């Protein structure tokens, strides 16, 4: 499986009670039945509409770097979830759960509003309301 390039592939079936993520562009391109964990170094953290994005350089099993984009909610939605523009900084070590793209590209949605997935920054989990 190609996604094994990352340290962890969890493939967790989502609980039926999990609130569906909302993205203004929908979630059609993502495999919402699967959750993987992307581990690496943050290269950018965009705190803008329509969606905040964490860009991560993650090494695969061969040591090659792959550049990931992890989509979040809009800044206002992330603020209501307890985040701020300073929650993540360039250079941080990150382990972020995400629903990966169906086509295997290094992009995923890490959650919106009240359904943000688990994100660990420099060993400390980010608190989400």
């Amino acid at each position, binding site marked *: 499986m190609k996604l094994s390039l990352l340290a962890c592939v969890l493939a967790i079936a989502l609980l039926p009670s999990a609130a*569906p993520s*909302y*993205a*203004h*562009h*929908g979630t*059609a*391109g*993502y495999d919402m039945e699967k959750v993987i964990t992307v581990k690496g170094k943050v290269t950018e953290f965009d705190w*803008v*509409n*329509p*969606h905040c*994005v964490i860009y991560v350089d993650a090494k695969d099993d061969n040591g090659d770097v792959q*550049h990931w*984009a992890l*989509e979040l909610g*809009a*800044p*206002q*939605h992330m*603020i*209501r979830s307890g985040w701020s523009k300073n929650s993540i900084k360039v250079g941080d070590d990150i382990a972020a759960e995400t629903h990966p*793209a*169906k*086509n*295997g*590209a*290094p*992009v995923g949605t890490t959650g*919106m*509003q009240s359904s943000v997935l688990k994100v660990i920054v420099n060993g400390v989990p980010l608190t989400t309301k």
Partner: protein
Amino acid sequence: MRNMALLIALFGSAMASPMLYSQSAAAQGAAVASGAGMKSAAGAQVPDLSRNWGPGGKTVNNWFPDDPRGQHPEKAPMTPWAEAKFKTAHPPFGADATFEAINDPVQNYCDPPGVSRIYLYPWEFKFIQTPDTVYILYEYTKMWRAIPLNKEHSKDPDSTWLGESVGKYDGDALVIDTIGFNDKTWLDHLGHPHSEALHLIERFRRIDNKTLELQMTVDDPKAYTKTFTGTKTFKASDSPLGEGICSMSESQEFQKRVIDLSTTGKSQK
């Protein structure tokens, strides 16, 4: 600029009117908490809706009461005219949605979401009640409406994005009647169309201290074979309204760097 004009108008109105309803600040705070005690300039009791409201009830993706989540959007009571338009719509939501096909005017062009659809987004809105006008400030796209109370519609209103609204209080409800729409917006997240004959009735009431109910009645004989009413609830919020501006440049950047990755496998940056 437009927002500044609104703020000036609101501030002026607040300073000049016998508002509200002649309550002390403390009493007004209590009224907001309890949803009771507000009176019109004429002394009649009116429902107090003046606060922020946000998502919190069940998911509603369209206003058809038999299928509020929009799991069978093709079963809506559409006329042949509406069915033909519906088939050309490729919304971001639904079982058949793909990123490549989306032609949602809000997403692709930052068009205004329209009156019926704006409430389906997970953003907040706020009522500001004055004796002669109710203002609604929407967080998403920074849209606002001014609804004059106890007025008649004009005889031949222009066709506009938000239509021509008039409002009145009916017992414990605020009722807003709107006509004069253009036909450029979608009725909902699933791409159901409407015509310029669209007539919307929004009926807002507090069903408890922390919950607002909206009944949305859709009447559009050119597009639908019958009138229908959907219901959505909202939770009271103490969070300030934020910036939900839709910017084409930001949207295009997001498209190039993120969405294109999941369609072509390549980012354009």
